[in-house]
């Protein structure tokens, strides 16, 4: 079902990652609120045609690796009022992920 991606996976469950903090124009499949935030890879979802190219009529190939990343709500929203253990899970394509910086909290 999932077309094979040409590149090996860069991340594995448990890895700490940071979402790229960039704002390129066009159709981007990553919400603004999560850019620049760090979390842990929860699972690998498979490889899928890149929706950012499908949106413009290209075939989206090579397929991109997709991960679910778990973020602490208090890391996303500085003013979050709920308990520190509340989380948000989000799917992120590999090209939006970087290894988390050492000083990332």
């Amino acid at each position, binding site marked *: 079902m999932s077309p094979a991606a040409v590149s090996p996976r860069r991340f594995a469950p448990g890895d700490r990652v940071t979402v790229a903090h960039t704002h390129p124009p066009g159709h981007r499949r990553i*919400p603004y609120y999560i850019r620049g935030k760090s979390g842990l890879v929860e699972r690998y*979802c498979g490889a899928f045609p890149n*929706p950012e190219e499908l949106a413009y009529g290209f075939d989206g190939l090579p397929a991109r690796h*997709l991960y679910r990343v778990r973020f602490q709500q208090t890391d996303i929203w500085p003013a979050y009022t*709920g308990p520190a253990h509340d*989380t*948000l*899970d*989000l799917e992120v394509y590999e090209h939006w992920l970087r290894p988390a910086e050492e000083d990332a909290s």
Partner: protein
Amino acid sequence: MNDKAVHQHAEGHAHAILRWSDDSAHDIDETARYPLMTEAIRQILVEKGLISADAVRRLIEQMDARSDVTGGTIVARAWVDAAFKERLLANAKEAIAELGISEVDAAHLIVVENTETVHNVVVCTLCSCYPRMVLGMPPEWYKSKAYRSRVVREPRAVLKEFGTELADTVTVRVHDSNADMRYLVLPMRPLGTEGWSEDALAHLVTRDCMVGVTVPRVPAKAHAVE
């Protein structure tokens, strides 16, 4: 009454969809440029004999026929069959195929389990991704900007507005379904349902329970009968 009129009035003009930065048409506007283009293409294809009007109608009928009854069936089976539940959480597609449900979309279904310590709730902030193959068409509020923008930022306040208050000891886990996965919440089986038939259990499980904005409850009347 008229969503489109309200939308146009609020936006101040009738072609908000043409602005690349404005995706408000995801919310309510079904009669803008692209829907009209789609309808024009449909008519041309029918006139040329490439597709039939009945085939289009039949597909729409099939899509509209999908409902949360399917999701309720899956949840009830998981409640009465622990081994099925484990398979469902590990690989939803293979597990629900056992029930004769084999929608293509189910390839990317992820089932998330509510427990005494975790409550799951689903949203799509980028558009309105929804597990239609097991829940049917999404409700209007699921597609609204208010729900989409608030439930990721203040989920407990939104859940409270749905009548769902959770203790601070429970972890609220929001799932922003923005790419290729679709999510179904497996609620906790309510107390007082011991010995219930699978069919009776399935009727307790509503759409909102499986999106995660509420939890299944035993009606007071059923309590009395028990």
